[in-house]
Structure formats: structure tokens, C-alpha cells
């Protein structure tokens, strides 16, 4: 058994680069990515990346940071170690957000075209374009890799795409302006934030039905709440949501969606990231041009870190 653990560790170290402990922040108006050492909280670099960076995430081996450049119609590829922009892959019109499939394919939303696209970053080939609703945004890949979800912000739906068939298999109506999705580790449910409705919904993946909604967030937290980011804690005990102009993050019970705790952070909190040990939650605060660091035990903001202009998304490699 000991040997198998060693072997597993060896394979993991071959497959995945050693963590850089860097927090990467896309700055929508700054056209840059701020690189923060998550251990010290110091800004290490600001990488000029291109027009209107929003969605940000890693290749499966974590060697590369991908950034969706809406105004450049491309995905930028940044080397996570050297911080060099290696290339920009044409990604169709106005890419906003994306999720990276276990096989390396980038599934992305083309906001102004109402499309979801599957992009192979190794060849640059667009493998499929799937028509979805207006202003597609949040993208999620199921843990089994069989389905991709795309929200359409102005059509108020979560679209379910079959990966093998590259076509829609279901369309689920949710509260107004759905923005992000997150899956449970076993893939049986997913959660979706609805920014204008002020809701968080839980959807059963087998039936594609909404099985729980928290529509009381504005009453229970503050009337300015606009849910945007959503992320499940590693142990599955908390669902974190960022609340936009509510200038806060909340921890919800993932099953009942009841509010367990809230923390005040900077203005218009959108992007979220959680440290590997689960102790630090980060938010991207657009007009403040900061990242807030929240201690998840006390649910208090413990630090703020300056970024470029209008930070949008976060990706943490620790």
C-alpha cells in the first residue's frame, strides 16, 4: 500500500507541475493579469495580456494559465512559471468565460454570438459550436466529463451539452441572469447563481430539475446582493458565493442553501478562489481594484491586495 501511495505521488508529480502558489487575477479594464504570491500576499508581476480579459483558468497539468480575451476574440496562454504569454488561440467572437475539460478541451462561451464552443488548445481547432441562449456566460464541466453546462444570462437558462455528441440535451430555466455554475464532486447536483433575481439554485443532474432555491439572500444579507461566483469547499460542507454589489461573500449549506455565515469584502465581489487547505477564500473586487483575502474559519476579511483595473476572475495554483 505504501508503495502504491509513492507510485501515485510520482505519477501525480509527473503529470502536474509543482504548484507555483500563484493567484492569477484577470483585469477586465486593465487588459492585464495580476500575479500574486498567495503565501506572502505580494504582487509578483502584472502581465499585459490583451483586450478585455475575463474568464481565467488552468490547463489540466497546470502548466498554463488560459485567459479569455473578449475584445481580441482569443484565449491567451500564459506559462504559469515564466509568466510569458506563449500564444493567443483564436476562440470565436467575444469569448467571456470557459471551463477546461479533463481531456484538455476548452469549453467557452461566445457572449455576443450566443454560442458555446469547444476548442482544442493543442491544435487551435474549434471542434464544435453549439447555439445557446443570449449572452452565454458561466461554463462548467461535470466531474465525469460527460456534460458541459453553459448559462445564458439574458435567456435565463442553464444549457446542458453532451460532450460525446456536442449538442444540447436539456435547457433549464432558472432565475434572471444566471452567471456561474459549480458541480458537487459526485456530479449528482450543481448550483447556479442568478444575479438579477438574487437567487442561488440547486439542480438535480439526473432530472435536470431545480430542487432548491434560496430567494431570501437580499432579505437575509443585504438588499444590494447580486450573486455571481459560486464554489464548493473541498470538503463539500460549504457553498461559497460572491455577492457583487452586496460587497460580501456568503457560505451556504450546500443542501438547504441556508446562509451559514457572511463576510464583508471589497466593492462588487465577483471572481472567487479557495486555497487548497480551504482556509483562505479570495474575491476579485472590480471598482476597488483589489483582491480580498477572507479567513474561512472566522469569516473575516484579513487582507486586501491591489490588482489592475476592474479585476474579474481568479485562478489559484497552490
Amino acid at each position: 500500500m505504501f508503495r502504491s501511495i509513492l507510485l501515485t505521488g510520482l505519477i501525480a508529480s509527473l503529470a502536474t507541475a509543482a504548484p507555483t502558489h500563484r493567484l492569477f487575477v484577470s483585469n477586465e479594464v486593465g487588459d492585464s493579469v495580476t500575479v500574486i504570491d498567495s503565501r506572502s500576499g505580494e504582487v509578483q508581476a502584472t502581465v499585459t495580456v490583451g483586450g478585455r480579459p475575463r474568464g481565467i483558468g488552468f490547463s489540466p497539468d497546470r502548466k498554463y494559465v488560459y485567459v479569455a480575451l473578449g475584445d481580441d476574440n482569443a484565449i491567451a496562454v500564459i506559462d504559469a512559471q515564466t509568466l510569458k504569454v506563449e500564444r493567443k488561440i483564436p476562440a470565436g467572437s467575444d469569448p467571456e468565460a470557459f471551463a477546461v475539460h479533463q481531456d484538455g478541451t476548452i469549453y467557452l462561451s461566445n457572449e455576443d454570438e450566443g454560442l458555446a464552443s469547444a476548442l482544442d488548445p493543442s491544435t487551435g481547432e474549434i471542434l464544435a459550436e453549439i447555439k445557446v441562449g443570449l449572452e452565454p456566460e458561466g461554463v462548467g464541466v461535470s466531474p465525469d466529463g460527460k456534460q458541459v453546462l453553459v448559462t445564458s444570462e439574458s435567456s435565463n437558462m442553464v444549457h446542458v451539452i453532451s460532450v460525446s455528441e456536442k449538442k444540447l440535451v436539456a435547457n433549464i430555466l432558472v432565475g434572471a441572469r444566471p452567471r456561474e455554475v459549480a458541480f458537487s464532486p459526485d456530479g449528482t447536483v450543481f448550483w447556479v447563481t442568478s444575479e438579477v433575481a438574487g437567487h442561488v439554485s440547486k439542480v438535480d443532474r439526473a432530472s435536470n430539475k431545480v430542487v432548491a432555491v434560496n430567494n431570501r439572500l437580499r432579505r437575509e444579507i443585504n438588499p444590494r446582493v447580486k450573486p455571481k461566483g459560486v464554489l464548493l469547499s473541498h470538503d463539500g460542507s460549504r457553498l461559497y458565493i460572491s455577492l457583487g454589489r452586496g460587497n460580501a461573500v456568503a457560505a451556504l449549506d450546500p443542501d438547504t442553501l441556508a446562509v451559514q455565515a457572511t463576510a464583508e469584502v471589497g466593492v462588487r465581489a465577483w471572481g472567487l478562489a479557495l486555497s487548497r487547505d480551504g482556509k483562505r477564500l479570495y474575491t476579485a473586487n472590480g471598482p476597488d481594484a483589489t483582491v480580498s483575502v477572507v479567513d474561512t474559519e472566522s469569516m473575516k476579511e484579513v487582507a486586501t491586495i491591489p490588482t489592475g483595473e476592474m479585476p474579474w476572475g481568479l485562478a489559484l495554483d497552490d
Partner: protein
Amino acid sequence: MRMCFATAVVVALAAGPCVAAEFTLAYVGPSGGATVNGLRLGVDESNVQGEFLGVKLTLVPAGGEVPEGAIAVLADAPGKVREIAGRAGSRPVFNLTDTNDALRSACLPNVLHVIPSDAMLADAVGQWSGANPDRPATAAAWHHKAVKFAARDLNRRFLDRFGTPMDGQAWAGWFAARAVGDTLMREPGAGPRELLAALKGADGLDGQKGDPHSFRASGQLRQGLVFVSPDGDLLGEAPVRGAPGGLDSLGNSPCE
């Protein structure tokens, strides 16, 4: 309304063409102009949504009589809203143009006012003047250069389609069609009464202006506005940040 078989609805999710529910919206007003263009865009965008769900809307022009099968009436008819409301029976009537305050305080049971009232516009200007006494401004429902809250996307769609910038009248038409559409997607079995009740009860309608929209007891749409300079430039958003009462700091006329 034509119903599809349940199995056909499942096919429709993948293939799209089967329509489970069709609705007619009656339009009273001139055949051209910003308001009806906004309506047309709103109906088309509702049908983009409806393609995935098997719901279809059709806009038909109506003259003196409201067509029997129409589920709602959309009126670009200043001075005639009361009369149209009287003829519409239980159907919701959307006032897209008339800003008269008395029409709000009359609290007509089936009228929903999308265009802001005179009192809302005046209160917005008052807030602006209080903060910026040396800079004159007017208030409007929309501005073609607005970018926040996905206004950029909506402005681009309107400009691409009609070649003219989207103004407050166009926004009112667009919003009415989207609000009807989104409500019918959620209740495809609704008749006029159920539609009216659902619209009056909705608290999170999306006007691409950031804050959730809902209807006041007077039937007036609760919404943010924009400030516009004498040269037509976008200056900011109303209510000003921190105004007590939020959206209801703008012309919240009580029922008489």
C-alpha cells in the same frame, strides 16, 4: 395554443422545432419608430429563449378592437391607455409611452406602465441637481451608450438590427416583450389573468439595468434611470448611490 405530446417535447429539447405553446401579443400604435422596433427585438429575443422551451410569441398589429386570442396588449398610444385598458378585459395592457402621473395614481387594475412617469423623471433630475447644482441634466429610461449591466450587449443588438441607437422608448418596448416572454416561459399554461398576476408578483425581472425590476401597486415599473447632459451624453445613473428608498426614491406615486 397547440400542445405537443410529451415525447415530442423531449425531442424539441434537442431539435427545437416543436412548439408546445404559442401566444399572440396585440400591438396598438404606429407601424414604425423606436417603440415598435424595441418590441420587435424583444419578441425575437423571447423567441430565442422560447426555441429551447417550446414557446413562441407573435406580435400582431391591432386597431380599434383587441384580437380575441391575444394574451396581452402593448400600447404606444399616449392619451388612450385608459380606453384601451377598458377594452382589454382581463388582459395585461402595457403602457409604453404615456408618462402622465394621473394614469399611475388611478391604479388601473390591468395596466403596467413600463415607461417612467413624469414624477420619476422629475425626482431623478432633483437628485442630480442636488449633487451637481451647476450641471444641468435630464433623465431617461435608457441611453444608447450605456455599457454596464450588459447594457452594452443590448445596445449592440438593437443597433445591429435597426441601424439606429436604442433610446428610452425602444427600451420600454423591448422590456415589455421580454417580461411577457420570460413570464410565459415559466407558465406556458397561463391565460391573461394568470399572466397579469405573475407579472405583478415578479420581483426579479431583468431590464439589463442592473437592479431587479418589479411593478409597484400603481402598475408602474420600478426601475433605475439614466442622467443625460444637454448634449445627449450619458452622465450617470439614477437613483444616485445611497438615495433613501432606492428605486422607490423615484416618483413613487400612491394610489388615489
